[in-house]
């Protein structure tokens, strides 16, 4: 028998509540390995903190999502939302699975081109596209999703000098029964702005309206909202069919599907309340199927879901820097990653597991990051076993947004490791160094030297 690890004794306040026969005991499942690779080994090899991405999980999640739609509707196309995670390796896994690219800036656009995505399989979204960006998109026959009239006028003006047709769609915002209404992207459906934009486009010879797009929100807890959105897009499509005798190629429902992360303020765990991919698929496909299109005129459904496809496939590994007791008696644990790396901790209560065995005793504590800033709080209140310095923790579901919204602030950004289908690890992004940051700085000559 191995020697039991020593744990300090502690006093826990008794909370009243409904009695249950299990008492207040909390069981932890320590996460000692990811896809068969020991967490300890990853940290030893690649340092702490460190992001881990599982190729297996990505592919499985993607296939599950595709199956949910494809077994309900014949024409479905996913477009990988670059902003969610634009690591080349991640994008290419999706592209290998058949995803197109959905980009929202010229930087992402070029990233997609650089990854080898054919121009006509890139969807160009976003509210900001310069004249040069538009020109590039037209030349590459990309799908331009027009966000506002100024963009439409810019494009119309631009097309005068181009001997080509631009493939465009409009972004439509609408009331889907979910509040607040996201009305900042595109043209409004209810007040006729969208219809106005459509007519403006249809009367332009060089603009080829091929689809309709909407981005109704993010982390949508109601699948029914998509049903309403799909119906409104179908309605526009059928009006276009009637007025202009033009059959649209696709309707793009955007993204916004939930991942199983728990939102701050949510009483229940995320996994228990979010709609499943099947719920979303059922809501969207049955609406389009029942709308009354002719069998040969069914539009392709494009989906730009990002979060729901990648969140589960990312983990953040870190270590305990120190533990301390706060003035009010609460326990605090300081970790070597903070909001600089875990941007999503601003809105999620991330699930965090210890990476090694503990006894079942736990204590409420606050998790701080390493930044010398008051905002650097990972979890304000979490019940974890009594972690010691140098113990490891694993943060779950960090695949979406963290690797694109992370900050270089005070600390450098760490390595990102991909575990492939065979369980082999690959560094897919190196950690930053002092040199990384210093390279771009320029010091005027008179500021080069000083003596204190």
């Amino acid at each position, binding site marked *: 028998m191995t020697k039991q690890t020593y744990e300090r004794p502690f006093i826990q306040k008794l909370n009243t509540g409904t009695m249950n026969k299990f008492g207040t005991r909390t069981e932890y499942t320590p996460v000692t390995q990811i896809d068969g690779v020991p967490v300890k080994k990853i940290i030893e090899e690649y340092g702490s903190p460190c992001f881990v991405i599982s190729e297996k999980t990505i*592919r*499985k999640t993607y*296939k*599950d999502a595709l*199956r949910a739609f*494809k*077994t*309900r*509707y*014949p*024409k479905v*196309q996913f477009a990988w939302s670059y902003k969610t995670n634009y690591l080349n390796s991640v994008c290419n896994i999706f592209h290998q699975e058949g995803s197109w690219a959905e980009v929202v800036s010229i930087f992402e656009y070029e990233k997609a081109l650089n990854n080898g995505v*054919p121009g*006509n*399989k890139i969807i160009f979204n976003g509210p900001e596209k310069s004249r040069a960006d538009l020109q590039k998109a037209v030349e590459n*026959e990309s799908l331009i999703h027009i966000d506002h009239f100024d963009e439409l006028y810019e494009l119309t003006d631009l097309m005068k000098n181009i001997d080509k047709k631009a493939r465009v769609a409009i972004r439509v915002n609408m009331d889907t029964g979910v509040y607040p209404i996201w009305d900042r992207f595109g043209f409004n459906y209810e007040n006729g702005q969208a219809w106005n934009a459509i007519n403006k486009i249809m009367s332009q010879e060089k603009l080829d309206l*091929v689809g309709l797009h909407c981005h109704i929100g993010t982390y949508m807890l109601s699948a029914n909202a998509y049903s309403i959105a799909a119906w409104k897009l179908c309605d526009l499509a059928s009006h276009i069919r009637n007025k202009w005798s033009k059959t649209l*190629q*696709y309707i793009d429902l955007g993204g916004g599907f939930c991942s199983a992360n728990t939102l701050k303020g949510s009483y229940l765990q995320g996994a228990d309340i979010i709609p499943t991919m099947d719920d979303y698929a*059922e809501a969207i496909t049955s609406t389009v*199927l029942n709308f009354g299109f002719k*069998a*040969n005129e069914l539009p*392709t459904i494009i989906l730009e879901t990002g979060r729901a496809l990648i969140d589960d496939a990312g983990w953040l590994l870190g270590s305990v820097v120190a533990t301390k007791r706060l003035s009010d008696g609460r326990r605090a644990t300081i970790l070597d990653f903070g909001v600089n790396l875990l941007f999503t901790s601003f809105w999620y209560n991330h699930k965090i597991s210890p990476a090694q065995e503990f006894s079942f005793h736990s204590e409420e504590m606050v998790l701080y990051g390493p930044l010398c800033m008051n905002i650097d709080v990972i979890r304000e209140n979490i019940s974890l076993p009594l972690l010691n310095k140098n113990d490891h923790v694993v943060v779950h579901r960090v695949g979406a947004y963290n690797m694109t919204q992370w900050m270089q602030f005070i600390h450098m950004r760490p390595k990102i490791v991909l575990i492939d289908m065979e369980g082999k690890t690959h560094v897919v992004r190196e950690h930053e160094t002092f040199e990384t940051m210093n390279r771009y700085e320029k010091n005027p000559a008179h500021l080069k030297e000083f003596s204190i």
Partner: protein
Amino acid sequence: MKFWFETIVHSYSQIFFSQNKILGLLIAFVTFFSPKLGGVGLLCVVLINAVAYVAIVNRETIRQGTYGFNAVLLGIALRYNFEPSTQFWVLLVIAVCILLISTVWISGFFSKKNLPFLVFPFLVTYWLVAHSVSNFSLIHFDESRIYEINEQLKLKDTFFYKMAHSMDNLHLPEVLQVYFKTLTGIFFQSSILGGILISIGVLIHSRISFLLTWVGFISAVFFFKLLGADIEILRSQLAGSNFIFMAIAIGAFFIMPSKHSFLTVFLLSPVLMMLLFFLAKMLSVFQLKAYTLSFCVLVTVFLYFIHQGWLYKFLSLITIQYYSPEKSVYKQSIYNKRYQFDQYAKLSLPFWGVWKVSQGYNGGITHLEDWRNALDFVIVDEDQKTYRNEGMHTNDFYCYNKPVLAPLDGYVYAIENMVEDNQIADVNMNANWGNTLVINHLNGLFSQVSHIKRDSFKVKVGDYVTQGTTLATCGNSGRSPEPHIHFQVQMTSEIGAKTMAYPFAYFLEYGKKGMALKLNEVPKEGALISNVETTPLLKDSFYLIPGKKIVFYNEMTPKKLIEWEVFTDAWNRTYILCKATKSVAYFVNDGTMFYCTDFEGNRHSLLFSFYLTTYRILLGYYKEVEIEDFIPVNYFSHPIFLTVQDFFAPFILFTKARYHSKVKEIDNTYAPEKITIESTVHAQFLGLKTGVIKHELELSQGRISSISLLKNNKKTTYICVS
């Protein structure tokens, strides 16, 4: 003018079951070895076709020589027997009219039984005339026939006589002499040269027919000698020609040339011999000549026999008559495989996306006995699991509540919607089929889908549903331990009727090596399968309906237009006609596949390129799917290889033409605006490549925009203008 030329020449070549012009001219030439016979023969041909031209609507049958070939024989036979006089000419005209009427009547009578009329009209007419003539005192027998030696002396110095008999003194083996004389004997002549010319004509027409003339003749000689009959009989009264005609008819013309057909010819020879003697003796009582009656009787009876029995398995009947045994072999050997399922209704899978066959035909679990030809479908994930989470609830199953589609157009015949879904692992043995839907696809075809979710029906009894319509959703009702779809095809309407094995026209199977297109197969147990989704541009481009005109021009010569038009014939076969080159390409477009079924005409025409390019095109885009097929070799192989192959064609095919097609470029998958299809044909001789033809077909704006021919590093492009 051309019509009349062809009509006359075909009238001659038809005697040897051919439409070869050289053969026709050679025969006509041989009949003129005796100018008086040849002249009357030709006169009869012209006469009957002229009368037919006035009296008969279908000019094509006239052009094929259908009415003419009996007339050749009749004219020659009458002139051979009777002296020309005014009365004779009158008689001749009447005889020709009788011949035409009897041809129409006999062909109509026999065609009901799907049998040919052969030379029955000639025999009937000849007997009629020959018998009645004895009462016409003003018509006399031709004495030159009776006083043969005198006649010979009289004609000895004439040009035709000299030529006809110029080779008679060659010291040929007896068999050869008899063979050649038998051939000329058909036209009441006796000439070695004539026989040689005719046999050369037959050889040019068809190597197989040529072989068969020998097979028929040698078999006859063999059995004559075996049974001690005099082979000189073969030369007289058209007796020997019976064997030759029978050999061609049975060996290659009505039956696919094969080792079996050759064997049949040999085995039928003694029968024919006995029939010959029997009929000659029988008819001699009535003072009638049997001539070619025995072959007509035997062929007719034997063909009738094949229609009824199982012999067709070895002796397959020729369905499309090309008047060329070689073409028949080359085309039909491929067509038999290619179109054996064309009569079947084209079923599609009753779902969207990729499903797995969880229980196939003869599944062993529930697909037993009368219900053995049924399929169960479920959805699985990468780990072959049918459910997510614990799988304790129907909702955990991937296939639960997924749409079920109509496999084919039809009327909803019956709906059972009374059974609740089972708990997982429970089965409802009382309501075996659970909620079920039966569709009547008409023509005695029904399909049944079972274990549907209660109240999920989107159609009602009596609705007409088209292929792919959502019917209901998958449930777990009836004898179903976990959600799945049960699908079966049946011949009667009852729920749970006896099942029938029936293939799906097209589906994709997903294996370790990627996807493969399956045609007319029943998916196997454990296979992952999906329907073929079509691509709009491919579908639009190949939507060729009768009346559609397609115009091309060569890139180099934009002013010279090539015009095609789409037509449909009496058998509802659609084809593209290129008037300028008189070429025809038959095609089928069933909504999932476009394929050319036949080509006749000019091999240097653009239409031929089109035929090669679109021999088989899948109307859906799948990157990994490459279409393969075989094209009849007669279009490709080198002439020398092909001639060698011709002789062996009934026995073994060592030349091949392989066809491949795939989408080379596509601008986007779901709503493409430009697609380039690449097709390749490899000609092979004994497995070695002897030639390659490549084509590229470009589609845009919903139609074919250009065809390019790539040959010897040269690219010739034809632009389609409308």
